């Protein structure tokens, strides 16, 4: 292959490997630290009684312990739908309580009762995980005893907006780094070929799935005693994505370019490809959400007032290292300069002796590798399914358009703004609407500055 291509992928690979070695050692250390404290009695639900009265039974567990420990001495009251108290109990040493409802099963069927927890009797420093749980409605639908569980955790009222904001900011930065990798590929491909690639999300999913299939192989991959299955998965996903991008360009997009297919036609072809690949991914991986066998439950570190998992830190560090490497390559290598020249003006680049097709092949290879890497890292941090990339495709578009479609630095700037905005905005809007906020930003940007933050006006044509 070409030297430029080889150099870029080689350098990227070195960065990935270096960061992953750090990742394994760090996670091995945390895995060892997490063992211990298993002597307390387990917190289990009381057995329902087989008689013709109904009781509300349940338990109060402290989920800060592993396994959850029972909480004794908490008083609970049951009131009926008019608010009249009809029974009370205090949890015993095993954390359970049972409050019998007056009357027979038939009397109580279909009625709603409320279980109230007396917060004053909870141990010091503890609170219900869900503050709304202080009174919980319970409906009697069956002729069995009704069971409820109250998880108890850290007292969260003291967490101010500032701390919450900081916590969200950290989460936003981790997500932005991954978003930036995906956005960079999309923007470079657009810049050099003019293609708005609706199948870019599937390149992201591809990376996550390759690592998943490596993970699914029987046995573990071990180097020097440490389990490196996922680390190997990340490396293989990165290489396989690069190959996938290169082949996709060679087999599909290059022939289309050379026969002069229009850009809108190519856009619709990319939609067809996206539908095909997404169905294929669902065929191969199923419809459910997956987690890798490692790193799915990691104990967080407290850094000042906030919690950060070592996993997220390493993922973010790896991402930043990759982004910096790509930026340096684009700025200083011949191939990088040629890429920017083609993105700027393909005919002019071509007439000054740059092999445009070669540049495009490099961009497809690199862009797909970046997208695949971002996919596997997203999968590590938050799990994944066959729609992983499709779900964030619009956010990638938002990032790229915000920064300036086709600009390389703009994609990264845009990704950081969108990624951080999405997380921090949950301070003010419900979490389910956080993507909506980002998409509104996208439309507003187009209204005010269609060329994006770093784009030039003539790009919009």
């Amino acid at each position, binding site marked *: 292959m070409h030297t430029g291509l080889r150099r870029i992928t080689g350098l990227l690979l070195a960065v990935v490997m270096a960061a992953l070695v750090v990742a394994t050692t760090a996670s091995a250390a945390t895995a060892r630290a997490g063992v211990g404290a298993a002597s307390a009695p387990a917190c289990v639900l009381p057995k329902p009684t087989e008689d013709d009265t109904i009781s509300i039974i349940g338990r109060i567990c402290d989920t800060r312990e592993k396994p959850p420990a029972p909480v004794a001495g908490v008083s609970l009251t049951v009131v009926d739908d008019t608010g009249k108290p009809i029974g009370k109990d205090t949890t015993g040493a095993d954390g359970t309580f049972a409050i019998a409802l007056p009357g027979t099963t038939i009397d109580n069927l279909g009625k709603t009762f409320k279980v109230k927890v007396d917060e004053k009797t909870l141990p010091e420093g503890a609170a219900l995980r869900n503050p709304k749980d202080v009174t919980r409605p319970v409906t009697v639908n069956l002729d069995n005893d009704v069971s409820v569980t109250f998880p108890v955790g850290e007292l969260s009222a003291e967490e101010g907006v500032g701390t919450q904001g900081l916590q969200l900011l950290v989460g936003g930065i981790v997500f932005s780094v991954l978003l930036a990798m995906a956005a960079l590929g999309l923007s470079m491909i657009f810049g050099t070929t003019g293609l708005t690639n609706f199948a870019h999300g599937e390149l992201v999913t591809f990376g996550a799935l390759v690592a998943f299939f490596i993970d699914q192989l029987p046995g573990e991959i071990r180097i020097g005693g440490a389990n490196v299955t996922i680390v190997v998965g990340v490396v293989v996903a990165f290489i396989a994505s690069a190959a996938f991008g290169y082949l996709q360009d060679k087999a599909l997009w290059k022939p289309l370019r050379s026969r002069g297919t229009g850009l809108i036609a*190519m856009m619709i*072809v990319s939609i067809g490809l996206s*539908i095909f690949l997404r*169905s294929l991914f669902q*065929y191969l991986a199923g419809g459910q959400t997956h987690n890798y066998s490692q790193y799915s439950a990691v104990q967080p570190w407290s850094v000042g007032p906030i919690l950060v998992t070592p996993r997220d830190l390493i993922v973010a560090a790896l991402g930043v290292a990759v982004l910096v490497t790509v930026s340096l390559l684009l700025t200083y290598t011949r191939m990088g300069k040629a890429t920017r020249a083609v993105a700027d003006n393909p005919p002019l680049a071509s007439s000054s002796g740059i092999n445009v097709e070669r540049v495009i092949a490099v961009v497809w290879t690199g862009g797909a590798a970046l997208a695949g890497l971002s996919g596997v890292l997203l999968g590590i941090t938050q799990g994944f399914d066959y729609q992983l990339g499709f779900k964030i495709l619009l956010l990638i578009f938002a990032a790229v358009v915000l920064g300036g*479609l086709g600009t390389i630095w703009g994609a990264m700037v845009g990704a950081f703004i969108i990624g951080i905005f999405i997380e921090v905005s949950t301070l003010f809007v419900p979490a389910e609407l956080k993507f909506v906020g980002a*998409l509104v930003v996208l439309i507003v940007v187009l*209204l005010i500055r269609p060329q994006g933050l770093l784009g030039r006006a003539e790009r*919009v*044509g």
Partner: protein
Amino acid sequence: MDWQSILSQALQQGLGPLAAVYCLAAIGLNVHFGYTGLLNFGQAGFMAVGGYTMASVVATWGLSFWLGIALGLLLTVLLALLLGVPTLRLRADYLAIVTIAAAEIIRQTVGSVSLLKWFGGQDGLQAFSTDFRSLNPFDGPLDLGIVTWRANDAWVLVVGWVLVAVSCLIVWLLMRSPWGRVLKSIREDEEAVRSLGKNVYAYKMQSLVIGGLFGALAGFIIALNSAAINPSFFATDITFFAYTVLLVGGAARVLGPVAGAIIFWFLLSFLDLFFRDAAATDIIPQSIMTQNQASLIRFMFMGIALMLLMIFRPQGIFGDRKELALDAR
């Protein structure tokens, strides 16, 4: 394998209410994309506004069904204006990204827990189609010999295809008028039209509104068809499927969407039934394909078909290649 049952069920889908829904959505896209060259990827958003307005007016506020229809159309016009203002001056790919984003904003907003009391969250709304069903003239199943529909389906189907016929007539009349010729010339060469003193922006806006209204009709029918509405009816893929319908039949042809919808739904259900039957009777072994996987094969075929169609026959089955200058730049 029971070929007769497979073919008759596939035909039932091909002529069924859902085919009419996709046909209406594709007629709207035909006005946008086929005649004006506007790349609207947010047809699902127009459908959602129409369907949800009708449903919530009846189910949430307890007002008249006909008021729901009228308000649905009105809000669709409003959405088109709102979308058109920032985007119609932009290049085609920007329009595509903004419309797809707008459709997704609408879908996630109506499905949110915060608006649960008006739009029913992810479960959506039911109980809005009593008025519509009380008008149903069929009191038994509609039997056409090879295919049968239940009474409610038959009523939705008749209304749907009547709307399709009226819409086709409207499009035909519009496109042979001087107004339609301006639209087609905007598609071919925007600058030339501008130099003749036409307000291109205003024409594009009118096209966006009219195409959006056909989308709203599709939204009404899809809600009435299942007598329920929820956000998953309006996923991004619905727009893509409507594009496939349009491109199969042939863009910039009045009857293109009709042919496209029938062929699309016939093939989609045929592939589904065929592969599910093949997986169930072990013609294809379980280790290769389970029942769940079998229902995915049709979407793979569809993706490939869309790609091949766009590469080798962008004018579709009935289109005219000369009519279709797909690349605006």
